[in-house]
């Protein structure tokens, strides 16, 4: 597993600099204009882009054949991509947390932090099975549609959240837990599906 992750980090090392710069830039924007949507959008985008880019390199190089021929278990190969996505999500979440604290987003509720982090996981859960099933080229198109849809949903939810008429606005922790549960279930279901897809894949 470590070998696979290491290979991915080596492969994407040049792009990683750009991704990091984008995260920082958007988090600074978040803090400056006190609008969490900027940081959140970028975090979601990066968390799915990195595993996608890593898989694109694998497809180009024929690494998927190599690693299967090396006797690597299908589950390990699939889990590695989820782990990569989650690691990137963690970095994005950490940067977003700083921006969130600086912009005093917690005054409105911690759900503004939890929801985007969970959204990263849900986006990852949707995109990775598509990547394993259709390959990066097709999955990239689907990803753009999905990320835009997710951002629209997120912004809409946040608008609803701010509304005074929403009676559950005061129950911050219930929603945070619910979002986390949804993200965890989505990840597990997605992982199960991806393993099934990959097991039948041929290169």
């Amino acid at each position, binding site marked *: 597993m470590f*070998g696979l992750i290491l290979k991915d980090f080596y492969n994407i090392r040049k792009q990683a600099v750009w991704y990091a710069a984008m995260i920082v830039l958007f988090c600074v924007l978040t803090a400056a204009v006190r609008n969490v949507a900027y940081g959140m959008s970028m975090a979601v985008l990066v968390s799915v882009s990195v595993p996608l880019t890593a898989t694109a390199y694998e497809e180009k*190089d*024929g690494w998927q054949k190599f690693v299967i021929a*090396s006797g690597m278990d299908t589950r390990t190969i699939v889990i590695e991509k989820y782990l990569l996505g989650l690691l990137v999500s963690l970095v994005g979440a950490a940067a977003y947390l700083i921006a969130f604290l600086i912009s005093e987003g917690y005054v409105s509720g911690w759900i503004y932090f939890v929801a985007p982090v969970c959204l990263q996981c849900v986006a990852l859960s949707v995109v990775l099975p598509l990547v394993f099933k259709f390959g990066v080229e097709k999955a990239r198109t689907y990803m753009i549609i999905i990320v835009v849809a997710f951002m629209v949903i997120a912004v809409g939810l946040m608008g609803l959240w701010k509304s005074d008429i929403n009676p559950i606005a005061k129950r911050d922790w219930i929603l945070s837990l619910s979002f986390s549960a949804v993200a965890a279930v989505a990840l597990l279901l997605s992982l199960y599906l991806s393993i099934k897809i990959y097991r039948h894949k041929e290169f």
Partner: protein
Amino acid sequence: MNKAEIKDLSKHYEKFDVESVSFAVPSGAVVGLIGENGAGKSTVIKSMLGIVQPDGGQIWFDGKVLGQMSRSDRQKISFVLDDTGLPMELDLAMLDKVMRNVYAGWHSERFRELIGRFQLPEGKLLKEFSKGMKMKAAIAVALSRDSELLILDEPTDGLDPVVRDEILGMLYDYNRQEGHAVLISSHNTADLEKLCDYIVYLHRGRVIFAEEKDALLQKFAIYSLDDVQVREIDRDAVVKVCKREYGTDVLAIKEKMPESFEYSKATLDDIMLFYAKGEDLCSD
């Protein structure tokens, strides 16, 4: 004892089938897999490496069924793929670190030694290597881990004679170690004639023959015959015929042909050519 054995392997694609492929790779032997483009060589090799799932048949390594082998058993099979499969954005030092964490029996010292022997540039990314250097890097990876069987898919394809000779030398050295075996597919039958103990010929997804190389080259011969001679010969002796302007070239089983007929030795290339382009001899 066979290092690998394939029995009745079949794989069906929309426009191509591999059907009932059976052969063995004996311990201590080099087996050459020959056949024209699209004959099914890569499908057979990919099936052996678990990259494609066969529709039928069985594959054994050291008596163990491929699908039931543990990761450590699978790692005893080393391989070189036609496109190498190595991550091209890495340099050799990075590759060494990655492989150290992929293979349990990885030897960094051996890898560094092979890099030196192959004169591979250490500072460059793999994508900046020439085709020959990429193949050498793939071979260095394959030989730097503990393995007992080496499977190579077109390792010398498109390489110059000097590089090819170096690679064949490495394979020869590998095979001399006790309990090792090599399966190599190649278009370059001249290379295989030098290296192999056994030849498996695949034609349109089927095994035409799987025989000991020396016996095979002894068995067949090429005869240039006129029409009268063609009528005289035993039909069972004839494998394939090619009509020429000057007469008929016949690939035949030497011992069944009249001793008085002149013949030339059949090379693996000749045999492949006759099977691919030749016709059956009509009985009329």
